[in-house]
């Protein structure tokens, strides 16, 4: 694996590697890894911030799957959400990056496409409300009523049937920025000489270049984008709570992170909340492993 193990003057190559890695490693352990390990530990306890903490084995997990219907609903909603919003936003952000990369004025286009990620927070909330307001002033309700398709305004953020689909739509609409930027950078890392070499081998045309050169070359970025999209779409909560409130009416768009939030910061049952986190992690990890298997760059 490492062709260069020869001793260098002063420091061994291993010592140097550790020295380079150490700053990241220390901060990572303190602020990222420690909370994860702690959560896993708490998930086997009844920790509630106030009373003495007791070890309860797999009780929290049993409760989740046997007695908690809201959890099962959240699980279902999260799966639906992730399995639609994830792939759609992943593919669309790649296609946009690929198309924009060749256009004149791409900096401006790219800025416009990335805009939702820049103006996070209040401005975005206003835009959704502008479109999906549940009174007759909402842009979509207004248009549908003028066209005579509906007679009374649709309650986008309260109708149990509609909250989840609308939230999926908003997530796709607003959530493509990160993947897009990753792919833009990845496209710049493809060696242009490969296209010239490919042309000699008979790879011509934009789609042939895409499938035989660009995509294989971009595997590392495609993998990163996929993992990030999976983590983001399984961990969805912010968009839903700011659009439809918390909890959503009849738990129609209750997700696993909403469930974590509910138990941790409303009921202070940290142990139970930690167990929900661990279950969400295991599901996400399973899908993550699947795409790592599919997009592994080791076989090159």
């Amino acid at each position, binding site marked *: 694996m490492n*062709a*260069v193990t020869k001793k260098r003057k002063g420091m061994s190559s*291993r010592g*140097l*590697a550790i020295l*380079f*890695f150490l*700053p990241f*490693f220390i*901060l*990572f352990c303190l*602020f*990222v*890894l*420690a*909370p994860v390990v*702690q*959560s896993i530990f708490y998930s086997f306890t009844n920790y509630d911030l106030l009373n003495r903490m007791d070890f309860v084995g797999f009780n929290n997990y049993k409760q989740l799957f046997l007695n908690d219907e809201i959890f099962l609903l959240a699980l279902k909603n999260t799966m639906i959400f992730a399995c639609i919003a994830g792939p759609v936003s992943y593919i669309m952000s790649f296609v*946009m990056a690929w*198309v*924009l990369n060749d*256009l004149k004025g*791409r*900096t401006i286009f790219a*800025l*416009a*496409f*990335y805009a939702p990620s*820049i*103006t996070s927070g209040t*401005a975005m909330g*206003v*835009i959704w409300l502008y479109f999906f307001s549940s009174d007759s*002033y909402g842009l979509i309700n207004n248009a549908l009523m003028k066209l005579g398709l509906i007679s009374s305004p649709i309650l986008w953020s309260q109708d149990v049937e509609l909250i989840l689909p609308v939230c999926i739509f908003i997530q796709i*609409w607003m959530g*493509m920025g990160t993947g897009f*930027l*990753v792919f*833009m*950078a990845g496209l*710049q*890392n493809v*060696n*242009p000489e490969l296209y010239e070499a490919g042309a000699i081998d008979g790879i011509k045309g934009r789609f042939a270049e895409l499938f035989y050169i660009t995509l294989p070359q971009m595997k590392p*970025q495609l*993998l*990163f984008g996929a*993992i*990030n999209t999976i983590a983001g779409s399984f961990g969805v*909560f912010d968009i839903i709570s700011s659009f439809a409130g918390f909890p959503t009416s009849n738990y129609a768009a209750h997700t696993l*992170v909403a469930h*974590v939030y509910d138990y*941790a910061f409303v009921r202070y049952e*940290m142990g139970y909340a930690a167990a929900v*986190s661990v279950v*969400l*992690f295991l599901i*996400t990890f399973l899908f*993550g492993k699947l795409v*790592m298997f599919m997009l592994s760059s080791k076989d090159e």
Partner: protein
Amino acid sequence: MKVTKGLHLRLGRFHLTISASRVFVYLLVLLMVAFTALPLIYVISTAFKPLDELLRFPPIFFVRNPTLDNFRDLLFATSSSSVPFLRYVMNSVFVAAVTVFLTILVSSIGAYSLVKLDLPFKGLIFNVIVATLMFPTTLATIPNYMVINSLGLMNTYMSLIIPKVAGAFGFFFVKQFCDQLPDALLEAARLDGASEWKIFSRIVFPFMKPACSTLVVFTFISSWNDSFAPLVYITDDAMRTLPLALQSIGSGATLARAGAMAAATFLSTVPTIIIYTLMQRRVIATMAYSGIK
């Protein structure tokens, strides 16, 4: 040369070939971008709305009678507070700049070590880092608070910086680009007797410019827009950052404050646009392979 069907225009030095498929692509992109740009257009348009347009119900999207009143209101609203507004801006700039610098440095040398140097337990370390990326961060608040507290960092700029520096996201991102660095290049430099630090700064880092420029954008925006960390860790009013200052402008419940708020939201978006545009230009201008034969 590519042969394209369609209209060929020639205006002085400019050659422009317009084909039907090209026009179609542009239209499609424009349509898409028109939707995604809406939040930004709204922020800009709102900053110039007079008070009656700001408070109108149902709300209007585009400004009709643009005015600079809101910026005057903002100046007035902030000049009356004990901490000058510029102080908040400088706090945010400082925190974001240091966070970006440390994140890039720590992630890129760490990723380089993991990919190309003789680091033990590579596979295990990488798997753990990727796994934490998939663990929900909802419950991390309390342990992070305890660490910051026990390090004695409460109410310091450091508390806003160091928890963000070693993220799994940034590390994994840079690592993926490092994977593409040809080994031959490094070996050649080692044979020439270059030190590891020189190899990193002269070869590895330039190669990862598209990655690092992109990570600058991600890191800057998340630091710049973060209102949660300063709320938790900072107690001294003079050390607060912009997002919190914005919230306190908005909470001064008088009607005139709505205008000041709109102007402040706009102004606080400007630096992110500048950083994004500068970095995106670098991504596109510095073709990673330009120096490599």
